[in-house]
């Protein structure tokens, strides 16, 4: 039996993909030495010039990957921290997301941009951000944010095989925190599919990344109190799996959306809107969101960081209120 952490699952998938297809190569800051989270450790020794240290320049990490993917290679770009991807916003939004659209598929970009996101690691303002809302509002880009090691591995393979640009978000707090026995573990192999991780009749919680685990813990607590929650692991944030979202919302009539990102303009708004438009008749309660307060980003000091971060307790409180509604 093989138990893997998230970081091991990510590294394993890259190793497997590079071994199977020599068009796959890595580009990013410090990747030759293994990367600051050691996701690429050993790969330079094994694959040599296919693991390339980039200069400290995010626009080029994305822009070069676009060129290489257009040429027919399969770049896996690493942005050291999601917080630093913004200099590449232009290349992702104005170029990568439109490559296929503006040529009607005559040209396309099989590229992956991996990056560690999320808080709870004393990373402060610029090593903790949730960036998914910005980058999920780009038709043409796929955004993936798994929660369990087995999915990290299978979905990273799917992202590498996909002919479109995929932003692959890895929650850094879970890198070594979350382990899973992966042999025979349920693993989603398709981009665009959410998973119902837990079934309950009283309400549905939608989450991803670290918050999926916090939501499962909250659901466990509520179960002990007699409230049964459905918990949906969104897995792919763009395009969203509307079917699973609506099926579960209709089934439970009460919904709670959880994310670590700040509330206003976060992905929760879109999920709430989808439900409020297409499952309205089934709703028995207001649509609730648990998210971070509207401040620029995670403060550094642990007391303020804890205040900022949603967690199992805050989720449980909201779920109880919703159940009682």
């Amino acid at each position, binding site marked *: 039996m093989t138990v893997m952490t998230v970081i091991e699952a990510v590294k394993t998938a890259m190793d497997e993909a590079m071994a199977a297809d020599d068009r796959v190569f890595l580009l990013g800051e410090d990747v030759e030495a293994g990367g600051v989270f050691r996701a690429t450790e050993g790969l330079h020794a094994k694959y040599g010039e296919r693991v390339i240290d980039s200069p400290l320049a995010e626009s080029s990490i994305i822009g070069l990957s676009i060129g290489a993917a*257009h*040429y027919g290679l399969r770049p896996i770009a690493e942005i050291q921290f999601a917080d630093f991807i913004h200099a590449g916003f232009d290349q992702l939004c104005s170029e990568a997301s439109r490559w296929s659209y503006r040529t009607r598929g*005559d040209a396309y970009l099989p590229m992956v941009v991996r990056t560690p996101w999320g808080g709870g690691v004393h990373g402060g303002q610029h090593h903790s951000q949730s960036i998914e809302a910005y980058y999920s509002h780009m038709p043409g880009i796929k955004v993936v944010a798994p929660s369990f090691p087995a999915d990290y591995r299978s979905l990273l393979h799917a992202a590498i095989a996909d002919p479109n640009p995929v932003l692959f978000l890895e929650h850094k707090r879970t890198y070594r925190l979350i382990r899973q026995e992966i042999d025979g573990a349920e693993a989603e192999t398709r981009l665009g599919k959410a998973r119902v991780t837990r079934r309950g009749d009283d309400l549905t919680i939608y989450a991803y990344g670290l918050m999926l685990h916090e939501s499962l813990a909250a659901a466990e607590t509520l179960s002990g109190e007699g409230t049964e929650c459905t918990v949906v692991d969104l897995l792919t944030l763009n395009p969203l799996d509307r079917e699973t979202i609506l099926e579960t919302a209709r089934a439970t009539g009460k919904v709670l959306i959880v994310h670590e990102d700040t509330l206003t303009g976060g992905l929760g708004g879109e999920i709430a809107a989808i439900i409020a438009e297409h499952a309205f008749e089934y709703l028995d309660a207001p649509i609730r969101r648990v998210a971070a307060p509207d401040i620029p980003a995670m403060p550094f000091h642990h007391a303020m960081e804890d205040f900022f971060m949603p967690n199992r307790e805050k989720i449980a409180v909201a779920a109880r209120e919703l159940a009682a509604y």
Partner: protein
Amino acid sequence: MTATRTGRRTRSEKTIDEYLLSEQQLEDMYYYMLLARRLNERMLALNRQGRAPFVIAGAGQEAAQVGAAMALRKGTDYLAPYYRDLGMNLVFGMTAREAMLNLLAKRDDSNSYGRQMPSHWANSERKIVTQSSVVTTQFLHAAGIGLAAKLKKDPIVVMTCCGEGSTSRGDFHEALNFAAIHKLPVIFFVENNGYAISERTEKAMPVPNVADRKRGYNIQGMVCDGMDGIAVYQTVRPAVDQARNGGGPYLIEAKCYRLWPHSSDDDDSRYRPKKELEEWSKRDPIKLFRERVESDGIFPKEDLDEIETRVDDEIRDAAQWALMQPDPEPEDALGFVYKEL
């Protein structure tokens, strides 16, 4: 489509050698420059008639574009051009009819099928890289193609182009920096036409020549007379050969001049002195070329007139044909957001 040779006549072989260009190439050069200019003229006419919403032209830059593109290997080398580079696209195989389809955003325009503004070139078969309206981003795409080719050990060269104003953007720096560090086979070709819309080069650059920017990357670079197609070819061709053989990237500046307003929406009288325009018009690259090859006795007047006639015929045909082609359906706005394999 290249020009077919016209009737034979005697001419001095010596001058031909000086040019490093064969008769056929010299004829092609004139043909493509002229085709680009006449196309642009017809496009502007269609715009004035309200039949084309937007025109952005390369008038004044034909010699730079055709001279540089002819130095590449058609079908093998990559081109990541910018919106003015009609001349380059023609050298790479775009026909007059295709150019008109693109102008009119017709359903069958193979650059973007009416999805992008005109002059946003793309053609995978011809190795023309799709570009957006956002300037300079293509410099990184070209470097990425160079990196991929180097990894695959393919002996190709990538040329990417922009205007002098676009060299102020961060992506310019990041692309040259990376290409220089990895000695990539990329020709960064800057068409300095003196203006970025209304801004003269002094507003964009602290250096007199764009090519001076090469010094921060210790790569090779040179300035050439962008009004002289032969000089451009003679400058770019050796660089392309060097780059193909591992010589690393080049930054080449072609000094030309934007003979027209920035685009069909621009009124250049707000910022451009008449006098300056008149001076530069005397160095119209097409006029210069014709005078030179005629006086050197490469082509007698008749040959050149013959080319002019052929070009005019092609353009008349292209415009008439393109105007009758189908427009996209409203629903054609949908599809290909994601590539399906």
